[in-house]
């Protein structure tokens, strides 16, 4: 659908687990059953279109994405309602509440979820050359020279 001189931009979380933090202290992780696998699969999908010579990576970077709540209970509810198959376990909630209780709440520190996100910009390459590998009957695309 993109023009030959257009581009594809992908943003997706890394396969690393999302962490609960209070200030600089990590209190646990978000239990997101299949998220690491899904996010790793996104990386594999990007690598595949590059390997097949369909796209070239023009730029890639990663950044940290924080989601804050006023309370850990609020964050927990948000995660359950808005993330796919995700939850925060009771022990993590307790640790987060305890960390917040150490005078930080009065300083305006809020609990947060930390995610590492990968951003990639890809450019479509010239139409790949299709060759028929007669030896094994597989048709594959060759990247342009």
């Amino acid at each position: 659908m993109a023009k030959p001189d257009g581009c594809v931009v992908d943003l997706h979380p890394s396969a690393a687990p999302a962490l609960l933090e209070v200030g600089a202290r990590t209190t646990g992780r978000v239990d997101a059953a299949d998220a690491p696998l899904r996010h790793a699969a996104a990386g594999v999908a990007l690598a595949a279109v590059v390997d097949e010579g369909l796209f070239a990576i023009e730029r890639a970077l990663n950044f940290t994405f924080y989601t804050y709540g006023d309370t850990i209970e609020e964050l927990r509810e948000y995660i359950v309602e808005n993330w796919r198959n995700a939850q925060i376990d009771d022990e993590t909630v307790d640790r987060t509440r305890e960390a917040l209780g150490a005078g930080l709440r009065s300083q305006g520190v809020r609990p947060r979820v930390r995610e590492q996100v990968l951003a990639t910009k890809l450019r479509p390459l010239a139409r790949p050359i299709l060759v028929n590998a007669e030896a094994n009957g597989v048709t594959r695309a060759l990247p342009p020279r």
Partner: protein
Amino acid sequence: MAIDEDPEEHEVAALGVMVPSFASLRVVEIGCGDGRLTRRFAGAAASVIAIDPDADAVAELTAELPNVDARVIGIDELVLPAASVDIVLFAWSL
């Protein structure tokens, strides 16, 4: 509820590195949700098609950004003419 996503605007900064200007560009956003990212470029872009299977989220986007062509569909249902857009943006959707 006071959930605050990316108040540091790291995501917007990253998008700005990837696409310094959306001016005059035709954009398709896959996985637009409620428009968290869409609102950052919709005003500058020539046109925006934003899709997401979540009807409630798309309704929020439409209420805020009526000029965006927002559709409650998945990527499998998206049909566009070849070479009709400048940027395809996958927003946390791969």
